[in-house]
């Protein structure tokens, strides 16, 4: 009996140690990041493609989309997330971060202090990007206005309030390979990069499993609105009948083929994406139609 107990204890310790190792925050290889330098103008396009402002602007109505003071609340099944201040303020924002720290935050979901970020932050998508693009983004974001609003803590339920548990979530769900695979045209590939790595369309338009990971088998099929009433519409499947022209025009102007005008949480997405070259919007449209095949 004593032997058995000892055996259980040993297995428990080994299991706990394995979980601890498995849940450790992992950063990018230093050689991946060495020699990257950012270009502000390139970074501006990455900023608009990545939609940072959609979540990180102030909660006030009609807030300035370039002041990333944070404070917006995002309700979920796990509790309420509050977007942090990511303006270049040295105390309350990211003003003292290095480019390497920034890229690890955005692509690996690891803070400069070595803690996990929750996957409400779509590093789950950004992890597929070319790190060079986020070196550009870093250069641009450091030129934005600083704001001294303190970041607010999330309000999460147990066990989700244990940050280390995010490491296990990452081990299960964080993938940097493409979701839509097979034969893609050059335009569809560009659209895939923009959508799956930067613009993170799927984060709202794809349903999630019980642990909050995207269901790749129901890609773009629409999902409950996580932060309010109604649904985020499907952009694939039988009920979605838009053409490439329709999708590109919508991202450029906010007008649906029926001439309804964009609203809700999609309005800031359009306001951001409409700054991209029209060819980039056409590429996203081509990819979305390809993804729905």
């Amino acid at each position, binding site marked *: 009996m004593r032997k058995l107990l000892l055996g259980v204890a040993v297995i428990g310790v080994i299991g706990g140690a394995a979980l601890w190792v498995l849940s450790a925050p992992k950063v990018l290889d230093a050689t991946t990041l060495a020699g990257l330098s950012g270009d502000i103008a390139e970074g501006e396009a990455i900023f608009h493609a990545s939609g940072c402002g959609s979540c990180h602007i102030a909660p006030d*109505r*009609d807030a300035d989309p370039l002041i990333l003071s944070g404070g917006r609340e995002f309700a979920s099944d796990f509790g309420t997330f509050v977007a942090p201040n990511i303006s270049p303020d040295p105390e309350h924002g990211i003003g003292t971060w290095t480019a390497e720290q920034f890229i690890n935050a955005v692509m690996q979901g690891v803070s400069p202090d070595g803690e996990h970020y929750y996957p409400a932050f779509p590093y789950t998508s950004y992890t597929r990007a070319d790190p060079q693009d986020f070196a550009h983004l870093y250069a641009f974001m450091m030129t934005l206005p600083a704001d001294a609003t303190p970041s607010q803590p999330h309000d999460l339920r147990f066990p989700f309030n244990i940050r280390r548990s995010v490491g296990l979530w990452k081990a299960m769900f964080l993938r940097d390979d493409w979701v839509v695979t097979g034969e893609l045209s050059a335009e569809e590939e560009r659209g895939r990069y923009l959508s799956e790595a930067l613009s993170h369309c799927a984060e709202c338009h794809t349903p999630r499993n019980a642990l909050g990971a995207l269901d790749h088998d129901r890609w773009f099929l629409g999902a409950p*609105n996580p932060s*309010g*009433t*109604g*649904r*985020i*519409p499907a952009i694939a499947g039988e009920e979605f009948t838009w053409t490439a022209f329709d999708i590109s*025009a919508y991202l450029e*102007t*906010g*007008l649906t083929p*029926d*001439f*309804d*005008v*964009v*609203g*809700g*949480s999609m*309005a*800031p997405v*359009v306001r951001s994406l409409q700054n991209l070259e029209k060819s980039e919007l056409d590429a996203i449209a081509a990819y979305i139609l390809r993804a729905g095949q």
Partner: protein
Amino acid sequence: MKLKTMLGSVALSLAVALPALADENPAIEQRQGQFKLFVHNFGLLGGMAQGRMDYDGDMAQTAADNLFHLTRHDQSRLWPEGTDSMSVDGTRASPAIWDDLDDFVMKFSALQDAVESLQSVAGDGLDEMRAGFGPVGQACQACHEAYRDEAS
């Protein structure tokens, strides 16, 4: 027991019927009808602006005139308290409208201004109409962003 069961089912049917009754506040359907007429005209101009159809100065001017008059329709009886999406089904009007009616009114008057500018150029040529059309869409978007819920 029988009476209790009966009372229970009366209470239940009332609970089911009450939201349905509230749905029937005619203001909801009436204001939705108003927005359909906005789209009826806005969509024609949008079709021309996006090159889905050829520009026709007379048709564009008529649509812009219609929009001008439609957006002057007095709104005071179309937005009664209790007709928001939290109180009743069948509307996407956010409760935030009634939290700050002044801002809602201000955004509506921004629409009126944009439509007035559009009306003054809609018949002057495709590029002129386009230049006037864009700000109307922006005015719609500003209000939809703050005050319209996702569709269900």
